[in-house]
C-alpha cells in the first residue's frame, strides 16, 4: 500500500498538470492514479423536490407543540410595573429594626470567634468590582498546587490549581477584587513558591510574595 502520491502526481490529480508532463518514471504512477480516480462514482446526487417540504413540515410540527409554546411563554421577557405605597412610619420602623439587628450582630461577633473559613476577601475598601485573573505555574513534579494571598486570607486550600493535562502546567482563574494583591503558590501543601514571572517583594518572614494589580481593565503588573 502506497503512503502517498508523488507531489507531481498530486498535481496531475488536481488538474494542474497533464499526465504527459510527468517524467517517465512517474508516468505509470500518474496513469494509475487517474484510473483509480475515474473509477469513483461521481454521479451528482439529486435531492427529492419534496425534501424541503418534508423538513419544513417537521419544523412547524415541532414549533407548534404545546410544550414548546409553554417554554417560549416562560422564556419571553415582559415589563412588569410594581407600585408600592407605604406610610412614613413603616420606613422609619424598618430602618430602626435594621439598625438594631446590626448592633446585635456586631455584639455577637465580639462574643464568639468567627470561623476560620469565613471567605472575607475584601481587601480594598470601596472596590466592589471583581476581575477574573488567571494564575499559571509550571510545576511538573508537583502533586498539588494552590494559590494563596491577601485575596483569600492566605488560605492554602481556598484556591487549588488544576493540572492542564500532563504538561506540568497548573492553572486556575479567580475573581479578584480591584486593588493590589500579594500572593504565592503553595506546592504540595507545604512549599511556598513565588510566581517567577511577576514582581516580588519581601514578605517580612525571609521569603517573598508576588504582586498583582487588578484594575477594572484587568490584571496587570502594578
Amino acid at each position: 500500500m502506497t503512503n502517498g502520491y508523488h507531489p507531481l502526481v498530486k498535481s496531475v490529480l488536481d488538474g494542474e498538470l497533464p499526465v504527459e508532463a510527468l517524467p517517465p518514471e512517474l508516468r505509470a504512477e500518474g496513469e494509475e492514479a487517474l484510473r483509480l480516480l475515474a473509477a469513483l462514482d461521481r454521479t451528482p446526487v439529486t435531492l427529492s423536490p419534496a425534501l424541503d417540504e418534508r423538513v419544513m413540515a417537521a419544523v412547524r410540527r415541532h414549533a407548534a407543540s404545546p410544550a414548546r409554546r409553554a417554554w417560549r411563554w416562560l422564556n419571553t421577557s415582559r415589563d412588569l410595573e410594581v407600585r408600592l405605597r407605604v406610610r412614613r412610619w413603616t420606613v422609619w420602623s424598618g430602618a430602626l429594626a435594621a439598625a438594631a439587628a446590626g448592633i446585635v450582630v456586631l455584639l455577637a461577633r465580639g462574643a464568639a470567634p468567627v470561623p476560620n473559613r469565613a471567605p472575607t476577601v475584601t481587601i480594598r475598601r470601596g472596590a466592589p468590582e471583581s476581575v477574573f485573573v488567571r494564575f499559571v505555574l509550571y510545576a511538573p513534579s508537583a502533586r498539588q498546587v494552590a494559590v494563596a494571598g491577601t485575596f483569600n486570607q492566605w488560605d492554602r486550600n481556598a484556591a487549588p490549581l488544576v493540572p492542564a493535562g500532563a504538561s506540568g502546567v497548573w492553572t486556575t482563574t479567580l475573581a479578584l477584587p480591584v486593588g493590589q494583591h500579594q500572593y504565592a503558590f503553595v506546592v504540595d501543601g507545604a512549599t511556598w513558591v513565588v510566581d517567577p514571572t511577576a514582581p516580588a517583594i519581601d514578605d517580612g518572614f525571609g521569603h517573598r510574595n508576588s504582586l498583582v494589580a487588578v484594575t477594572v481593565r484587568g490584571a496587570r503588573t502594578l
Partner: protein
Amino acid sequence: MTIRGLILVIVSALGASDLAAQDVAARLAGRVPVDVARAVEAIATDAAAQGLPVGPLIQKAIEGGAKGVPGDRVITAVRTLAGRLKQARDAVHGGGLTAASPDVVEAGADALNVGLLVRHVSDLTRVSRAPFDPAVTLRVAATLTALGIPPEQAARVVEDVIGSGGTPADVSGLPAEVQADLARGATPGQAVERLDRAGQGDGHRGGGAPPPPPPTGGRDKKPHDPTHKP
C-alpha cells in the same frame, strides 16, 4: 461642644476601639496562636490609636500563621510593618497630604518595604495631585523597584512622567512596559533608558504603536520549573 456632646464622642470612640479590638481578635482566631493574636491585637490597637490602618497588620499576622512562621517572627513582622506604616504616614504628610487614606499609607509602606526612601515617598506624594492618585503613584514606583529598577530611578521615572504631562494611565502603565522589556531580554537599566527615551518623545508613550503586551501579569507564560523553597 456641650458636656453631653463630649461624653457622646468619648463613648463612641471607646466603643469603636472596643469593636476594632474584637474584630482583630475574631479575625485572628484559629489562624495564629493565642499569644500571637494577643500581641498583634495590642499592636493593632496602638496603631489604630495613632490613626494608622489596621487591616495590613491583621493580614500580615494571618499570612505568617498560614506560612507556619514561628510566633515570635510573626509578631516581629507585624511590629515592623506597624513602624513602616507610621513612617509612611509621616512621609505622606511630609508630601503635603495631611489626610491620607489608609490605602495611601499602605502603598507608602509597600514602597518603603521594597527600598524606596522616605523622601521618595514624600516627593511622589507631592507630585501626585489630581488627577493622579498618590496610592497608585507609590505602588507604581514600588513595583518598578520590585522589578529591579533602582529606587532612585524608579521614583524619578514616575515623577518625570507626571512632570512631563503624562496621564494617570501613563503612570500605571509603566510597570507593564518595564516587564515587557524584561521579558524581551532587556536589563532593568535598559528598560529605564527606554522609558527615559519614551518620556522625551522618542518612544511609545503618548502616541505611536503601543509596546507589545506583557505576558498578562506573567501568569500565562510557561516559565522554568520554580518549585523550590523561596
